[in-house]
């Protein structure tokens, strides 16, 4: 009889309990407790339910990761701040001056809320405990996407319509400075949340219908790259310029959608949908581990969803 060692050249390891699915990808083991031969595979990404916030929000600022995030503001004129630990949202006794339609960047303990409704030039920094106002941006903007860190930030585009801009500014920890404009003026875009020297800005709206166009930032200038499959605006995203996922929003002629696309640095692929269609949702994390927080259905929502890609699953070898 053929043996596993005879086929693969190695013996099957015996374990009394299963390892985690992600650590054991592409391996086979014998679970002596359950008397079963098992293996782990990496499957397609999916969304699972995340924690529900204390305050329903849309168009808020959010930063951090799927397991350590901070959000503030949101429509209608919310200033309260909440943090997320991967399971639950907690109110923290801090409010920002920025209210809604602003960009967010950074981490749970070092974040920024950038521009947005109101004066449209405020930048506020969160240190894990409180918000403090920093130097203003040069360009008035709202519905602007942002990425990077509190010492190396980036924001570009924004409205409000009809004065939509493609203006770009970078932040060095102290002040904002103007950079080369985007090719297409746009607001209500989303995209990568990673570093400010390599970013991807996706879709949005300007004069005419919602955009499907995408631009990449290399730290100096913007280049048009492959379009997303579904033109959209008022959505969110997470990741880097080589591994990015965008989710939700509104598409031309329709209400909120649950459509999700991921980017590998070259092209966009439609992947598993959100369970609930939303627009104005917040996004943070990475292309493989993202958080879609709150948003509108169109009623303002407290629920969140968590993206994991790939999803590892332990399987049992059966005889059939």
């Amino acid at each position, binding site marked *: 009889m053929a043996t596993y060692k005879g086929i693969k050249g190695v013996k099957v390891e015996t374990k009394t309990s299963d390892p985690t699915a992600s650590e054991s990808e592409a391996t086979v083991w014998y679970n002596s407790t359950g008397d079963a031969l098992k293996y782990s595979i990496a*499957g397609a990404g*999916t*969304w*699972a*339910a*995340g*924690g*529900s916030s204390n305050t329903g929000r849309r168009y808020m600022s959010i930063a951090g990761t799927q397991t350590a995030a901070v959000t503030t503001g949101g429509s209608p004129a919310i200033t309260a701040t909440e943090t997320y630990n991967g*399971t*639950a949202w907690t109110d923290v006794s801090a409010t920002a001056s920025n209210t809604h339609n602003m960009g967010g960047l950074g981490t749970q303990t070092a974040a920024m809320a950038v521009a947005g409704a109101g004066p449209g030039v405020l930048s506020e920094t969160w240190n894990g405990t409180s918000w403090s106002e920093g130097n203003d941006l040069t360009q008035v903007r709202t519905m602007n996407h942002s990425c990077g860190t509190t010492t190396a930030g980036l924001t570009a585009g924004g409205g409000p*319509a*009809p004065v*939509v801009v493609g203006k770009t500014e970078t932040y060095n920890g102290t002040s904002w400075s103007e950079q080369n404009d985007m090719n297409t003026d746009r607001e209500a875009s989303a995209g990568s949340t990673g570093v400010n020297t390599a970013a991807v800005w996706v879709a949005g*709206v*300007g*004069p*005419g*219908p*919602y955009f499907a166009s995408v631009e990449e930032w290399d730290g100096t200038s913007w280049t048009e790259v492959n379009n997303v499959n579904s033109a959209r*605006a*008022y959505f969110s995203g997470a990741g880097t310029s080589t591994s990015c996922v965008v989710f939700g929003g*509104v598409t*031309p*002629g329709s*209400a909120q959608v*649950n459509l999700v696309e991921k980017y590998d640095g070259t092209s966009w692929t439609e992947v*598993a*949908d959100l*369970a*609930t*269609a939303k*627009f104005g949702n917040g996004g943070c994390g990475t292309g493989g581990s993202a958080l879609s927080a709150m948003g509108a*259905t*169109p*009623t303002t929502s407290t*629920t*969140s969803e968590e993206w*994991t890609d790939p*999803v590892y*699953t332990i399987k049992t070898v059966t005889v059939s």
Partner: protein
Amino acid sequence: MANTYCTATNWGKDFFTHEDRNNFYLSGHPGDVWVVGNNAAGVSWINRVTGTGKTKAEAQAIVDGKVEESQATWDALPEAEKAPTAGFESLTRPEKYILP
């Protein structure tokens, strides 16, 4: 029947899991309405979340009611807020839709 229908309140973390999403169709709608793939895993999920079973017509009526509430909210907005900026596509009045 491809789908079944229920109402259930999303309590947050683990209300539905990655495994659930891989095992059956699931989509959430206004009014805590959930459309669930009609297989053993979907039925098991409805039990786990203490869902209340609905016919498609009942589920559709709940969603329609919530959309009507959203329409009323939209209609009450100032005209300046509702009116799209000339030449721009913008958010539109919520519309009823048919559940899958």
